């Protein structure tokens, strides 16, 4: 008797070895895809969207690459997801996490082929990850107390992060930019208050961090272009015709003269509103919504600078910088907190006019202006800078630091190897495999730089047998170098997150012994 089909048509089921193979292959394919972008000499990828315009993105950022891929393999989706989470959580290490998970699965595949049960591999991996974590925790450096040293740590981290990106030529410059920007946040991880304005033209070197705040808007016609000692009212209110909001209200009149009356009343109302706003004693008014010509004219008459249509983020940042509150009603001028700044002026960057607020009170927000030859360069620069900012802001909170250049991986691998030697049973194979997967990362970094990876990694391993070794791969000179001297550092939090989520994902994929794919939902034909 033949077994009936249990599933719906088009649904498929893969079992046991086949399922495992499908997920291994899918995961490794993804890891191999992003592998070449790892390290300071990693290469970029061009992504072309299938949408209209075929827009092109050039990037080196793992998360961005993976996000844009259309993937059908479920195991690969797991990897894409960990990279996305890594991006959200710490911002950097998005490539490393996928590569490490891929390497762990590659090693696991060999073990499974040698007839070791996946559960045994998992328990080995778990022991190994615990051991690796302890190794990292022991070697971690924390310079929180010493402000000077901490700042130099931040500089080093920023430089290390940026060195694998398009900004590596000017990493010194950008690292300084990023560190300054993050230090202004005073411990907050809200990167929203760092505004990045991209203006094509000039070179990357011309990018700068502005002390004050720049709003990408124009000043209304006939209004002062320069205000000293500005008092700013930041508002979110309708400045078009200020409708009556009561539902169902409408104007119904019986003669033309009435229309004129009501129009006059409306104008009067707007005039009143403007008067109320002016009564705050301000000389600059920034609104989130549109400002129509009529009120604009009124403001111009009163010598007030009125800026319309600043988007919500802009308003929020402006409120943060100037210390004003975002107002929507204007009846009690005495109690509304106004924002202050020393100077408002119109500046030119490239061909565009922007409004510049300088000498601000609080300075919790700031603006970075990026310049570059093309949109692609600017986009990539923004992503790189974003990565650096994320890492830095996380480091400000968790100030533990590690050395870079494959150093942490070698430290972990050494301890994990030792654990493997001590552990009886089949698990030790898995633990050994874990250390091999860790070593794969410096190997890939060396390979990507066109160096003799086998030679270098072997030298590195030998170096690491010494106590207190700080050796890592110096990609620039192509040899084993002292990471502490070269000033290559990484944030502990990033490495920690990479280690844990890569293992978690590998474990998850290893545990699967069956893949059931449902029939894809039928798209309704809209034609």
């Amino acid at each position: 008797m033949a077994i009936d089909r249990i599933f719906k048509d088009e649904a498929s089921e893969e079992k046991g070895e086949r399922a495992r193979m499908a997920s291994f292959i899918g995961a490794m394919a993804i890891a191999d895809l992003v592998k070449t972008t790892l390290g300071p000499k990693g290469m970029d990828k061009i992504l072309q969207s299938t949408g209209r315009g075929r827009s092109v993105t050039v990037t080196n950022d793992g998360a961005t690459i993976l996000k844009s891929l259309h993937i059908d393999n479920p195991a690969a989706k797991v990897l894409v997801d960990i990279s996305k989470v890594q991006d959200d959580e710490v911002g950097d290490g998005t490539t490393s996490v996928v590569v490490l998970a891929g390497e762990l699965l590659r090693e696991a595949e060999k073990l499974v082929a040698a007839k070791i049960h996946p559960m045994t591999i998992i328990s080995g991996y778990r022991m190994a990850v615990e051991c690796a974590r302890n190794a990292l925790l022991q070697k971690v450096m924390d310079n929180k107390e010493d402000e000077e040293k901490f700042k130099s740590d931040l500089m080093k981290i920023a430089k290390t992060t940026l060195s694998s990106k398009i900004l590596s030529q000017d990493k010194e410059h950008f690292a300084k930019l990023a560190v300054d920007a993050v230090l202004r946040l005073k411990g907050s991880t809200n990167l929203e208050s760092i505004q990045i304005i991209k203006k094509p033209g000039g070179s990357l070197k011309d990018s700068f961090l502005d002390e004050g705040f720049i709003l990408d808007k124009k000043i209304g016609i006939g209004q002062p272009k320069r205000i000293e000692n500005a008092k700013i009212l930041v508002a979110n209110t309708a400045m078009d015709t200020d409708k009556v909001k009561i539902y169902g209200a409408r104007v119904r009149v019986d003669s033309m003269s009435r229309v004129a009356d009501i129009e006059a009343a409306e104008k009067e109302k707007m005039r009143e509103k403007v008067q109320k706003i002016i009564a705050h004693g301000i000389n600059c008014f920034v609104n989130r919504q549109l400002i129509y010509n009529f009120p604009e004219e009124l403001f111009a008459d009163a010598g007030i600078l009125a800026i319309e249509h600043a988007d919500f983020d802009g308003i929020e940042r402006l409120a943060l910088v100037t210390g004003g509150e975002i107002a929507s009603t204007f009846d009690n001028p005495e109690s509304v907190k106004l924002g202050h700044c020393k100077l408002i002026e119109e500046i030119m960057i490239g061909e565009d006019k922007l409004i510049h607020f300088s000498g601000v009170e609080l300075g919790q927000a700031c603006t970075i202006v990026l310049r570059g030859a093309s949109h692609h360069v600017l986009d990539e620069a923004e992503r790189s800078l974003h990565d650096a900012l994320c890492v830095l802001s996380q480091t400000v909170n968790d100030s533990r630091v590690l050395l870079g250049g494959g150093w942490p991986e070698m430290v972990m691998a050494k301890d994990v190897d030792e654990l493997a030697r001590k552990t009886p049973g089949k698990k030790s194979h898995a633990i050994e495999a874990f250390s091999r997967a860790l070593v794969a990362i410096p190997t890939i970094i060396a390979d990507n730089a066109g160096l003799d990876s086998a030679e270098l990694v072997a030298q590195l391993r030998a170096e690491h047998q010494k106590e207190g070794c700080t050796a890592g791969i110096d990609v620039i000179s192509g040899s084993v170098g002292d990471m502490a001297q070269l000033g290559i550092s990484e944030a502990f939090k990033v490495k920690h997150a990479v280690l844990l989520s890569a293992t978690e994902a590998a474990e998850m994929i290893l545990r699967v012994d069956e893949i059931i794919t449902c029939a894809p939902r039928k798209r309704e034909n809209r034609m």
Partner: protein
Amino acid sequence: MALAFDEFGRPFIIIKEQEQKTRLRGLDAQKANISSGKAVARILRTSLGPKGMDKMLQSPDGDVTITNDGATILEQMDVDNQIAKLMVELSRSQDYEIGDGTTGVVVLAGGLLEQAERLLERGIHPIRVAEGYEMASRIAVENLERISEKFDFGLSNIEPLVQTCMTTLSSKIVNRCKRSLAEIAVKAVLAVADLERKDVNLELIKVEGKVGGKLEDAELIYGIVVDKDMSHPQMPKKIEDAKIAILTCPFEPPKPKTKHKVDIDTVEKFQTLRVQEQKYFDDMVQKCKDVGATLVICQWGFDDEANHLLMHRNLPAVRWVGGVELELIAIATGLSCLSFSALYFICLLFIWIDSIKKFFYGSSTVFFFLYLPESNVINVFEGGRIVPRFQELTPEKLGKAGLVREKSFGTTKDRMLYIEHCANSRAVTIFVRGGNKMIVEETKRSVHDALCVARNIIRNNSIVYGGGSAEISCSIAVEAAADRYPGVEQYAIRAFADALDSIPMALAENSGLQPIETLSAVKSQQIKENNFYYGIDCNDVGTNDMREQNVFETLIGKQQQILLATQVVKMILKIDDVISPTDY
């Protein structure tokens, strides 16, 4: 055939369009049904036990779920076969009733079907098989009762509860930190449990998850976590001793539901309307302020002007909070609980039907009706009031919380609102973190299972030993009882005993042990020493004494498994005709 002849020899048709339908009858139907039932059980078989594997499921929309939970696997499997659907239902009902053991119940049903097939081949009538199974299941359930042990636990001694939850969690991917998750689950259940009535309302426990961080970061919050932030960016992020006004009316101009038009035809009218409108906003905010609220939680949105007024009057507010969360907040921030006997309540209903109606529409207080069949009591939980109109705000209707704070996560603009130290700490939230979306989802499911288990123990503190020991013991008891039954049922009862063995067999198989060898060794040990602690040593600890390994399962869970599985198998066996439309 579905073709009959009347007394004149003319054929007439019983089933319409019968050529278009496929039809299976008699033994063929039973065998086909059994084989599809077995196929479903086979899928789940490898997920059983601490060394069980996971399944990866891709939904019609391409989303990936990785899980080990039987009910979830079957639910997402998108089956087409009718019998397979029955099995899905089976696992779902175990999930609703007990919350754990959803895999085991399907594997057991599979085992029963497999044995039934053999009996059918010998020519035993399916009904006799079904009856034999019924008798055997009774014996098994009685045996479970006999070998069960009472558990003593209290608020100070939660160790036994934790151990049981750990048994549940050990088969999941989260077993790396099963200890801490089990403790969280137990504490959460104890926080909301009513130990006198031995009941737990799991609705009061909310399981929230957020990707990022690691499993170890999971925490228990005595309060509510809402995935929302303050409506105005400059409102305070932390409020102590908050008095919360919970509103279901928007901070917007009134919108009467009847159709109406306000006509403006003179300048005066225009101006009065404007003044009215401003006053309206002002009144709304003032009302909240007047009753002494320090935090407003609203189900709807705010108008810009209202938002600013709130901010200006120093009244932090949260908008767009979903209905379920709103109710939870209401319960957490102030709850009085009334219980009536059911009869009394029904009388009340009749007498007060009008006033109750008014009560409902008037102030729409959250009520939770909880009917407990054993004690014949309906509980009416009355929450901190949800207020539908500003006019009805009074100081008594405000909820209270010790601390409300906003917490941000990661590098993106992700914020959550924690409402803690509530007046009534009986609503708790378990907050789960994990490296990726699938892990977080799976952890939530696992925590749910653990919560159910803890609740079951509080309801009924009897436990049996796990690791297949209970099944082996039942199998021995059923086997021994079989000989006492005369007639064909004897065979069915014996077959039932064999089917019970399928669970420890699957456990052993999944743990990489020799199934037959291990099972027979354990069985003989149980009989020889007359000791029902012996089970399968899945974790390779070195002992198969489950008492030493601290592997416990709840008695009601096990009993339910056997009863449900038997019921479904009986149902499948009784089908002798399958009519289905052919594919077109």
